[in-house]
């Protein structure tokens, strides 16, 4: 358009035109680009969160729908003063620390193994991605079947090698069931650690190792003094992501044990699910879901803090 065209336009038109002149106005371009995603996330996440928050302050029980009253923080206080809630948090913490710990240690070990570039290491690198790509539900179903007390492969294998005299009901004892679920989780999630750590390992400076070797550092010293410190950012990221995921574990528990036996694998997400969708105590379930979020947020903040101080140093 020429100058004359602009002069004849009304102020409103000019304003509109300026707004859509993306070259001049970054904010409107940005707005145009982010609006679709903003609408989706606001509608599908923010609104439900607010609505859950409101619910958590009410006494809503679908089994008795006529009574819905504002009860303030009572739902929260009920949970926080309940022993079973804290036992559940304890079990969730146990699951989280043991499985994430095992995954990180194993993951670093396998990444180191890959780094040796033995014959066939490319095949191993390709294979390691498979358990991670297998859907969670499928891997849980595999392990449930392997653990089967009467026909499971684990019992069959141990029996044939003479390691056990009788078939063992792996999922019948609360504590053992938890450990078996952890093994299934480690199988599924360790590859993620390997992928991230070995990608970080590939960018480590070779010269440092040569220099350290000349200075007489042995393999273990080089690992502790060079590899681990340089991998620290990658390891921290893995820790954050895996801890957050493990703390809200649901799929694997649902498929293998459904929280049993005798609540042995009752973790916080599963408890919230039961409270909300089985016992239909919506207000109480909503409060639980916020307590879970709070725990996860605190964990994440602790990690991010550590990560940040690292960056400064």
């Amino acid at each position, binding site marked *: 358009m020429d100058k004359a065209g602009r002069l004849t336009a009304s102020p409103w038109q000019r304003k509109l035109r300026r707004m859509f002149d*993306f*070259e001049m106005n*970054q904010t409107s*371009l*940005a707005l145009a680009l*982010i609006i*679709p*995603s903003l609408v*989706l*996330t606001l509608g*599908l*996440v923010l609104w*439900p*969160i607010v609505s859950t928050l409101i619910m958590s302050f009410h006494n809503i029980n679908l089994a008795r729908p006529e009574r819905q009253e504002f009860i303030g923080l009572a739902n929260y206080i009920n949970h926080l003063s309940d022993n079973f809630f804290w036992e559940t948090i304890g079990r969730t913490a146990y699951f989280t620390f043991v499985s994430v710990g095992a995954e990180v240690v194993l993951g670093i070990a*396998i990444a180191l*193994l890959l780094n040796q570039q*033995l014959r*066939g*290491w490319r095949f*191993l690198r*390709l*294979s390691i*991605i*498979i358990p*991670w*790509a*297998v*859907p*969670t*539900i*499928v*891997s849980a*179903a*595999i392990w*449930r*079947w*392997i653990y*089967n007390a*009467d*026909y499971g*492969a684990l019992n069959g294998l141990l029996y*044939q090698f003479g390691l056990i005299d009788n078939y063992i009901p792996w999922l019948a004892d609360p504590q053992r069931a938890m450990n078996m679920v952890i093994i299934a989780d480690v*199988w599924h999630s360790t590859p993620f650690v390997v*992928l*991230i750590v*070995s990608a970080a390992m590939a960018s480590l400076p070779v010269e440092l190792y040569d220099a350290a070797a000349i200075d007489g550092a042995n393999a273990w010293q080089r690992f502790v003094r060079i590899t681990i410190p340089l991998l620290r950012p*990658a390891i921290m*990221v893995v820790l954050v992501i895996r801890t*957050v995921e493990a703390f*809200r574990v*649901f*799929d694997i528990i649902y498929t293998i044990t459904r929280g049993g036996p005798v609540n042995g694998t009752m973790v916080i997400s599963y408890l919230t*699910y039961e409270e909300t*969708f089985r016992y239909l105590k919506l207000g109480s379930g*909503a409060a639980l*879901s916020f307590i*879970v979020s709070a725990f*996860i*947020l605190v964990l994440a903040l602790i990690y991010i803090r550590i990560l940040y101080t690292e*960056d400064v140093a």
Partner: protein
Amino acid sequence: MDIKYIIGRALLYFCMFIVLAAIFAPLAWLVISSISPRAELLSVPPHWWPENATLQNYVDVIAPQEGTSRAARDFRFALGNSVVVAGSVTVISLVVGTLAAYAYARLEFPFRRSGLIAYMGLRMLPAISVALPLYVILRDNRLLNTRMGLILVYLSFVLPFVIYVMTNFFHTIPPELEAAARVDGCTRISALWRVILPIARPGLVATGVFAFLLAWDEFFFALLYTSTPAAKTVPVAIAEFTGRHAIDFSAQATGGVLAAIPPVVLALIFQRYIVRGLAAGSVKG
């Protein structure tokens, strides 16, 4: 060659063998179970290789007959639903998410940083804290038991992921490239289209594969919001095999193999992209 070196190597190869066995033994048992007749699966000790291997389970799923169980018959529909849902989520989240990510990475506007931090935070939110209101939204809009409903719900967690990862990708592309294109007369949009996107292709592929895997893997929402063959996805269908008949594992194993093939093939084909994507997308401090 000294003896210490040889023993060290032997140990390393032994470790490699153990890792490979740990990876493949459970998978092999899944495949073997899927081609075992039910009776043989229940033998004690187990038949490690079935005497009468059969593909009947696969036939039941692909071309169901009259006697086929309900769960096996519905599985075809579940596969179709999963393909449609995961595919749509991938395409929509890539288009919408990439545009937003470009804005977050390159443009100045109010609340830019807080928006990004919010998206990072959303990744940590447990699904259960939005599950109930989403149920109400879906019900009120007649979207329960529909693929459309699931697609919308999945976008709620795939989209923040795509935006976050793609923003990091755009940060790795030097702004000078774009500036050069703009000096040559490109508008911002055409610079994005002609210069930035081609360079970001590895990132787009990796993010797309991730988005697909996320959607394909999702179980919790699908469990709550779908209950009929019209929208039920593969993970829900597989979980249902374990329902009443606790020991119909051969059918469940068949479903498991079929459910695992698409993501595993994708992951193997795009292995390089995925590793690079993980490196750039999440390890970027």
